[in-house]
């Protein structure tokens, strides 16, 4: 460690390739060189990498997916194999990894419903499969949940869990817990009604379904429900805080991560934004959307709920990263739930009671005023309130969120939370939304843009205890993937313009970077190979929340293209091509 620290010092003096520290002009030149190198890499003949410290990840293998969509699903390990789920139309490939690289062992190609391309969320990407008890569980964008034998790839069961015809899809990873598999749906853009389902892990039968809107019975609110804040108490609030019938198509999807605490017997999940984006069409607090639920693992009954944005006007949902941590908080040992909000705040809650302990902004935020921790509810800044038929300008964060659902990693011993941040603002104009089943139910025109001071992305090292950044590293494009923190003291993350970077976890100095074939919208993973060595896998392949703006199909002359990302990403297409490649790096 000492040696590499010395290496860092030499970087700062000799190297002009540091994008965060260098001037814009220098960065531009480097980008141009790197782009041409990236092209070489695509043809598989050369690798560009830069390191002045001696720290270096060694590329040991690549695997091309031949899929142009958003590669959100980092591969998972199952019995010495890497299971790689490529975007829709899906294929699950089991790769054996070792010092000699990646070798496909078997493939599983589920049946596909091509019509799902029109309705599937998130650039047709689905988060990683989950492995438990020798079985792999995967969600597909066309609404199936499938259980496979993790060793052979034999299908055990397959269930249509989401109704594709209404615009529903699956986007998040399944969560196997005990004899159950929990899944959540996606489709806020189509006005679906969010739910969390428990499937029987053996048969795939639905055990229970808990909705995010509607009467208490549907939501799973019963006598055990004890929210910390009074505002969430009342009868049938999931229907009473909506105009008649609006909750039936009110969004609140469970498209973010699911996090279980088996000790407490709880599962935590966020709920998506209310649908449509037009807040005028859904007066009221729109419970239980844009919030966090704690539910009983066994029954799905709600324990507590914290609403991040009552009557969400800006479309920032509650589906950000969730991290469980047992830490000392203000001198008291507490079981914490850390939620890195898409609304640009790090929320720290007591995960037993649902009490909010802290909520501070890690990204540019002007849509809300502070003070959430005191009152339990965030206040909308009046000058950034949205209005029908008028454009509210420079609202931060953008509705695409200040991070992504795998966008944070916690270093428990140092108390540093690493956040892959999207420092985005938007111009938003509220329009009437028409509900036609199976078609988008949006109700807004949005142009997404970076903050005026530049730097649309940022890697934030957040000090959990005093709720402020320790250091930040600026990036030209929003970070849509996630960071990997390695106990040896570095952080690895990929960028939308195709760089894989390693930083010193203490001060954020760049220690190594490498150009990849495409942008990265997933988190790098640390895996242990069959040989016992540690490897880092990185899945490149643009897309994701940026949708096709980061891919081929969008025409960026339209500022509202690709959920408004078109406006931001003009100029990106020259720098990194879509298409998926899995990289396997050996640690030094």
């Amino acid at each position, binding site marked *: 460690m000492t040696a590499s620290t010395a290496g860092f010092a030499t970087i700062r003096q000799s190297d002009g390739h540091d994008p965060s520290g260098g001037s814009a002009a220098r960065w531009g030149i480097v980008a141009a060189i790197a782009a041409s190198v990236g092209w070489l890499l695509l043809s598989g003949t050369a690798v560009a990498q830069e390191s002045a410290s001696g720290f270096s990840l060694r590329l040991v293998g690549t695997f091309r997916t031949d899929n142009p969509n958003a590669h959100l699903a980092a591969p998972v390990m199952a019995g010495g194999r890497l299971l790689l789920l490529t975007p829709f139309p899906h294929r699950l490939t089991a790769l054996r990894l070792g010092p000699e690289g990646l070798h496909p062992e078997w493939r599983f190609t589920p049946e596909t419903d091509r019509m799902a391309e029109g309705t599937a969320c998130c650039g047709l990407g689905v988060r990683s499969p989950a492995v438990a008890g020798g079985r792999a569980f995967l969600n597909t964008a066309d609404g199936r949940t499938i259980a496979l034998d993790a060793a052979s790839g034999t299908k055990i069961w397959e269930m249509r869990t989401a109704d594709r015809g209404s615009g529903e899809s699956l986007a998040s990873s399944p969560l196997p817990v005990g004899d159950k598999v929990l899944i959540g749906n996606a489709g806020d853009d189509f006005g679906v009604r969010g739910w969390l389902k428990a499937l029987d892990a053996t048969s795939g039968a639905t055990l229970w379904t808990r909705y995010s809107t509607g009467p208490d019975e549907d939501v799973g609110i019963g006598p055990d429900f004890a929210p910390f804040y009074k505002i969430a108490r009342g009868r049938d609030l999931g229907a009473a805080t909506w105009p008649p019938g609006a909750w039936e198509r009110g969004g609140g999807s469970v498209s973010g991560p699911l996090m279980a605490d088996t000790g407490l017997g709880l599962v935590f999940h966020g709920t998506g934004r209310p649908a449509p984006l037009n807040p005028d069409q859904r007066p009221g607090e729109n419970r239980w959307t844009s919030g966090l639920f704690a539910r009983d693992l066994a029954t799905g009954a709600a324990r507590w709920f914290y609403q991040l944005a009552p009557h969400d006007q800006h479309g920032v949902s509650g589906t950000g990263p969730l991290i469980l941590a047992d830490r000392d908080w203000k001198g008291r040992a507490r079981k914490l739930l850390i939620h890195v909000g898409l609304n640009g705040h790090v929320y720290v809650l007591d995960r037993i009671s649902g009490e909010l302990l802290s909520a501070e902004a890690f990204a540019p935020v002007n849509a809300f005023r502070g003070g959430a921790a005191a009152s339990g509810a965030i206040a909308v800044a009046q000058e950034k309130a949205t209005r029908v*038929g*008028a*454009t509210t300008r420079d609202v931060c964060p953008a509705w695409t969120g200040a991070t992504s659902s795998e966008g944070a990693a916690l270093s428990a011993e140092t108390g540093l939370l690493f956040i892959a941040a999207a420092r985005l603002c938007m111009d938003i*104009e509220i329009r009437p939304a028409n509900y036609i089943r199976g078609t988008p139910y949006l109700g807004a*025109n949005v142009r997404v843009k970076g903050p005026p001071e530049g730097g649309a992305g940022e890697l934030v090292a957040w000090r959990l205890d005093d709720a402020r950044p320790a250091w930040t590293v600026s990036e030209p494009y929003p970070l849509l993937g996630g960071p990997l923190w390695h106990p040896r003291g570095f952080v690895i993350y990929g960028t939308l313009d195709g760089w894989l970077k390693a930083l010193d976890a203490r001060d954020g100095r760049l220690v190594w970077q490498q150009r990849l074939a495409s942008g990265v919208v997933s988190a790098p993973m640390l895996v242990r190979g069959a040989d016992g060595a540690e490897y880092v896998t990185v899945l490149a392949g643009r897309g994701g929340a940026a949708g096709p703006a980061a891919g081929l199909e969008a025409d960026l002359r339209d500022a509202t293209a690709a959920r408004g990302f078109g406006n931001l990403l003009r100029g990106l297409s020259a720098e990194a091509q879509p298409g998926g490649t899995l990289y396997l790096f050996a640690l030094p």
Partner: protein
Amino acid sequence: MSAASSPPLDIDIRHEELDGRLAETWRTRPGFWGALATVDHKVIGRRYIATAFVFLILGGILALAMRWQLARPEGRLVSPDLYNQIFTMHGANMMFLFAVPVMEAMAVYLVPLMLGTRNIAFPRLNAFSYWIYLAGGILLWVSFALNMGPDIGWFGYVPLSGPQFSPGKRADIWAQMITFTEIAALAVAVEIVVTVFKQRAPGMTLDRIPLFVWAMLVTSFLVMLAMPAIMVASTSLILDRLVGTHFYNPAEGGDVLLWQHLFWFFGHPEVYIIFLPATGMISSMLPAFVRRPVFGYLPLVLSMVTIGILSFGLWVHHMFTTGLPRLGESFFTASSMAIAVPAGVQIFCWIATIWDGRPVYRTPFLFILAFFFTFVLGGMTGVMVASVPLDTQVHDTYFVVAHFHYVLIGGAVFPLMAAIYFWYPKMVGRMMSERIGRWVAGLTFVGFNLAFFPMHILGLQGMPRRIYTYQTDVPWSGLNLFVSLSTVILAAGFLLFFIDAVRSARRGEPAGENPWGAPSLEWATTSPPPPYNFARIPVVTGRNPLWDERGDMPVASGLRVDRRELLITSVADAIPEARDSSPRDSIWPFWAAIATSAMLIGSIFSPWAVVWGSIPVAITLVGWFWPKGTPEDDA
């Protein structure tokens, strides 16, 4: 002026010879091209007036179509689409192509004569103005004939007239038609101001200017101050529609009420642009029919100036229902009511003039009496609509339709009819029929009041404006039928008027120089006047030159006869300052108007037309101002 080749001056020439020499210098060349090239203010004025009356007839036919449609509930004469075009055309045509131009046209004809000068200032601009006006009118009417007529109301409120809700080019044609007429009106306004200030007969000090001229002077200033607002508005509308700017798009920071402010900042003075000349006409005609000078010259002038100034302070009373701040609305109530005071001063002065005059009941005087009856009523309803709370009930209803027709027909068209009967002999040389004239006055007066008075009641009964039909469940059918039938009487009156005007041009009794025994200078020359107006420039010693000078009038002389020259006098006291040349006939204003029209019409379709279209405009302007080596063209 070297003594060696001394130019021929009028003092050197015998009177009998002088007319011939001047006529040779000032005449319009015969033939088609000569007619296109003329810059004689009388020829252009006559054309202007005749064209405006043609538009009056066309607009009137549209009015009859609307009345036919509305005579019964659920009328099916025209489709809603066509009805909306018709009422838009009626309003736009009457305001932009008839009322304003006809008043300016009367001024183009009369002002130089009343001031004792030989031509209007900037005569080529005057010719250009007419051609542009004609082109604008043709654009509008040809579009209407091709089912491209504007259907957005003469007020063209955004967003209805904007890019999203008015597909096609209908609204653009309306907006560009405004540009045409405003260019024409601004040109005339500039000419009149300069003519009044610099070309008055010697001795015609400011307090001796005929009241019609005063009215036109104030009007011209109103035109110059008000018209730019509508040109800005209509141009930004075209930009919104064509280029995609966001002047009126609230979603991108524009404001739809901006349009209303701009439009009514023009639109209200517009009413006075029409009405002030009419009051000037009354003041100028009345003395001839009560056989005494007008009472209260100074108060009359001051009240016209006051009206002119106040007219810019009350545009918001067209927007009382838009939800503006209450305090602001109260201010505009006060100012709207206040304008009744100068209007009242005028009425009182005229009554005082009649009081001890000796009324001569000829046709123009009958129209003046009709004016009193209708205009005062219109003024009273004007006071009513100026009240914010009251306006919330009558705004955009037939009450307002009745009100402004009382003001515009009663306050402007009746005086105009009087003026036509009064000055027709001067323009044509023959009298119009007195017998038919009495019928015309009677029919129009009775027909007008029967047709428009019930509209007050209809408005209070809840009938909104601009509806193409109404249903049987509202009790408006009886009055509407009555109104529609009465329109026939009004139309008959106008028909008789036009028949008489055409007939009298050939067969009317010869008029002589001054058939009414009127006091102002235009009656001091032959009817119709020669191309040079006055053989020798009169010298004025009083407000009523033809009454004040019992014998021969004094004249000024010393102008050249071999080129067009007129006398420049000082602004206040009209002391001769210089001889100035007046431009000769030229075909270039006509070409310039064609080129400008092409550019303006093209710019409806492509912004690049402004660029490419300005090339021919530049060429024609070069032709227009090309120095010919003669001093008069260099001037």
